[in-house]
């Protein structure tokens, strides 16, 4: 089949590779596997996949480095697999540009859902770079800096707008506190997660029907935020 999405799985544990290969092929994906970071980088360069599933704890070249090396030349979606106790590695991988994460052990439905989200956003991003981003009733026009909710203009402060523009510009990706703070406020504000809480709350009040049960500006507990566009 020609339209099968191509997934590259990089993990040093053969059992995981075997299981994922079997399961993903069952679900009509084309699967390539790599047992080391180096092999994974070589395979990704030889035939760029549509999505990479990357284990973080590998001997020699670890997942964070693989992630950083991939990001040097490609924006293809990267889904990292971490373990309990490896939270800091997970955040580090997201900081260097991974799109999403899953904690091992995970249910297969969860994995498939994340893969679908990653592929969908990659497909959207591949189209012509859009100046208008929309998610449900929210429309953000980057050229005029206008934000509308159900067609009505929403008044945002400059910081609120920058934060929303950055989040929506990376729709679907988990953006860590650090990434958001560095890109919206500046590098010297990397530690100030409390700023984010204040501004995310303000944005939700202005944009979400129920700010306490957000549908678009989602919290990734302890990690960051994610702007989602409904399927």
């Amino acid at each position, binding site marked *: 089949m020609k339209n099968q999405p191509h997934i590259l799985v990089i993990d040093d544990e053969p059992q995981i590779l075997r299981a994922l290969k079997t399961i993903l092929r069952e679900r009509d994906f084309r699967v390539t596997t790599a047992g080391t970071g180096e092999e994974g980088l070589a395979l990704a360069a030889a035939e760029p996949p549509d999505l990479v599933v990357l284990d973080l704890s590998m001997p020699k070249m670890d997942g964070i480095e693989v992630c950083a090396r991939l990001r040097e030349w490609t924006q293809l979606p990267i889904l990292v697999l971490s373990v309990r106790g490896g939270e800091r590695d997970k955040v580090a991988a997201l900081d260097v540009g991974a799109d999403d994460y899953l904690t091992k052990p995970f249910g297969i439905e969860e994995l498939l859902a994340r893969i679908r989200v990653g592929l969908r956003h990659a497909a959207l991003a591949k189209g012509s770079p859009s100046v208008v981003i929309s998610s449900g009733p929210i429309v953000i026009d980057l050229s005029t800096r206008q934000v509308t909710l159900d067609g009505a203009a929403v008044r945002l402060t400059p910081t*609120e707008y920058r934060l929303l523009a950055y989040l929506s510009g990376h729709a679907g990706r988990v953006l860590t506190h650090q990434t958001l703070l560095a890109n919206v406020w500046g590098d010297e504000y990397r530690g100030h997660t409390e700023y984010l*809480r204040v501004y995310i709350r303000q944005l939700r009040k202005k944009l979400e029907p129920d700010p306490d049960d957000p549908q678009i500006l989602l919290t990734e507990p*302890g990690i960051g935020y994610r702007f989602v566009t409904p399927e």
Partner: protein
Amino acid sequence: MLAGSARSILLHPGLLIDIAWLTSSLSTVDPLAMQTPSLRSRVLLAVACVSGTTLVLYAIRSALGPALVPLLYLLPVGLSAGLWGLTAGIVAAFAAFMTFNYFFIEPLYTLSVRHTSDLTVLLAFFAVAIVISQLMGMAQSGLAAAKAREREATRLFELSTALAGLHDEKEVAQIIARLTFQEFLADGVEVGVEGLDDGQRVRERQPAGWSAPDRTPQAVGDLRTARRTWGAIRIWRGTTTFSPAEERLLRTFASQGALALERANLAASETRARVLEESDRLKSALLSSVSHELRTPLATIKASASSLLSGAVGWDSDARQDLLAAIDEEADHLNRLVGNLLDMSRIESGALKPDRKWNAIGEIIDGAMAGVRRPTREHQFEIRLPKDLPLIEVDYFLMEQVFSNLLSNCVKYAPAGSTVHVSAEAPSAEAVEVEVWNEGPPVPEEHLGRIFDKFYRVTDADRVTGTGLGLSICKGIVEAHGGRIWARNRPDGFAFHVRLPVSPTGNLPPAPPEDLELA
């Protein structure tokens, strides 16, 4: 004319200082703090003393009998010898001998003597004066030595009191630096301790913020014991050199300091040995507890999977669904066990260093809920958090672990179909208290304090699964954040309380920069 010359002596600048010194030495003062007056000024003092006496005696000479004058002249001699030492005493004796002869013995205002009897008196006076000054001088130097020794002993006592019971090399170095700095009136002191067991180097400087100059220190005291050299005390002090007494005191300081360092080092090794022993004991306890705990879910998984593989179970049967669900649930169970083991080993190894950031309680609870909700379809959750709860400066992942353990514990002992509750409040501006509770049976009061101990179980191990580690992990994490965790029986259930300081420093989260509405 004579009065004038006496005043000019008194106004001699060096002398004024010496007189100031005299008064200060009479009141009780730190003797090392002042320098012993030079020989020259001590002699000058003795001469001034004799001159003064002469002035007074000469003024009242008509009232004095001939026998009284030499007697009174012994006063300045004794005084000089007593206060300023042997040399000053002898000079005073000689000066008194001369002035006595000059002003009081016929013929007056010459140094010649008319009567033989006067010569005898004069010679006798001189002999007595010399003997007195010698005795007084000896007594004075003995007293000075005794005083110096007493001081030394006092300082030493202060040092050893300050060093007693210290088990940290850095603290020891701090104390040595501080006391040396005070004692030797130094410009600066540096205490360097090197090559400790953990490869650490300690450098303590006094005063705070002072940096050691390039030039060589005035004095160096090696911190040395029989076992090894620990480092050195270096003292910089203007240009004044160290007297032998000071050098001796410095050596004593150094050897006391070195002993304290050795003691601290030995204590640290002992603590390490004890920790190792303790963790060894823990590991064996863990192994026995864990191997049992791991085997149960493994047995279930193995049995279910092999019966599914055997093909004996029909494809669409309920049995097949049951077996699959059992595998899924037991895998989750295994995952929790392994997670707890990992957390426990991190806490035990002392690697628990909270990475504090400003976090919202609500977010932490949400994160914890995400992990608990799946295996507990038969329970409801009710979470009530006030909207104005302050942010708390905690390690997100560790705190999520705490609440995930508390929630799963509450779920485990809650009757099927009941509700698990979470609520929070800020009892003061500095603390936040979270209550996690279920509608389960009460725990006997005598167990309440101990349920946070490792491997402690209220119920029979066979009835409820778990390693007995979850709650002690919670306690370890909460205490690492300076908080407190406890349990209590409610009228309608059983509750855990976690009270956390908003911030270890007492600071509040900084407000974001001002931001204006877009026009």
